[in-house]
């Protein structure tokens, strides 16, 4: 995994306007996307769901945003993450940050590149305007464009 957001969030790792009925379906879909991207085995999906059932929805890291993950030894094949937006938001049972419309599925690793990737993601999300731009995305190409613009503006600084 590199520290460049553009290299991490490739088109095959992005899904836009996905329709799910509840948080469990959202987790299942995210896990499936991670499997398809070659990031994790199917048991990682189960582990992500069980973590929420056991520890609560603390993975809803900000209003509307969930960072799903389990532990590296629970089926990670390759470090990286997928990004998914929902057509209608779902509740995770979080005390303040429901409902969730933006999900990241993180294949967690133990090495330093993992931290670099996460910090890159965190800085992108904390940039004013990033969240709104993602929310307005109508399809995968729109979402890619948001990432591309951010990466370009950053490398020009």
């Amino acid at each position, binding site marked *: 995994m590199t520290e460049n957001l553009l290299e991490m969030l490739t088109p095959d790792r992005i899904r836009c306007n996905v329709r799910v009925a509840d948080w469990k379906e959202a987790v299942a879909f995210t896990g499936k996307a991670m499997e398809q991207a070659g990031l994790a085995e199917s048991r990682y999906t189960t582990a992500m769901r069980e973590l929420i059932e056991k520890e609560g929805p603390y993975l809803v*890291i900000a*209003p509307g*945003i969930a960072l799903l993950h389990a532990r*590296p030894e629970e089926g990670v094949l390759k470090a990286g993450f997928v990004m998914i937006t929902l057509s209608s938001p779902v509740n995770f049972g979080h005390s*303040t940050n429901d409902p969730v419309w933006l999900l990241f599925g993180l294949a967690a690793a133990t090495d330093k590149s993992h*931290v670099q990737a996460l910090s890159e993601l965190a*800085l992108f999300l*904390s940039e004013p305007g990033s969240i709104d731009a993602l929310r307005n995305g109508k399809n995968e190409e729109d979402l890619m464009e948001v990432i591309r613009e951010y990466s370009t503006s950053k490398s020009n600084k």
Partner: protein
Amino acid sequence: MEKYRALVVCGTGMGSSMLLKVMVDRVVMDNKLPISIESDVVAAAKSSSADFFIAGLDLVPTLEKIGRPVVGIKNMIDRKEILEKLQNQLDAFLT
């Protein structure tokens, strides 16, 4: 100036706590706050030597049982919220 030790906490220590640690690191660095930061899982919080804990709001009740101050962050990607709450905690230590 004396440094306070903070432990950023999450269920696995791999995801949200790591992300929160990145953001807290950033805020601490940008504002030169006297805080050193580590991250770990909830289960390790009790035996850690941290002066206070930082976590998402939903973990606050669990951490409060340990009997050390807890800074609960609602929006982990909001630098302003993180800065305000860290400053409040530092003020609380000094009074």
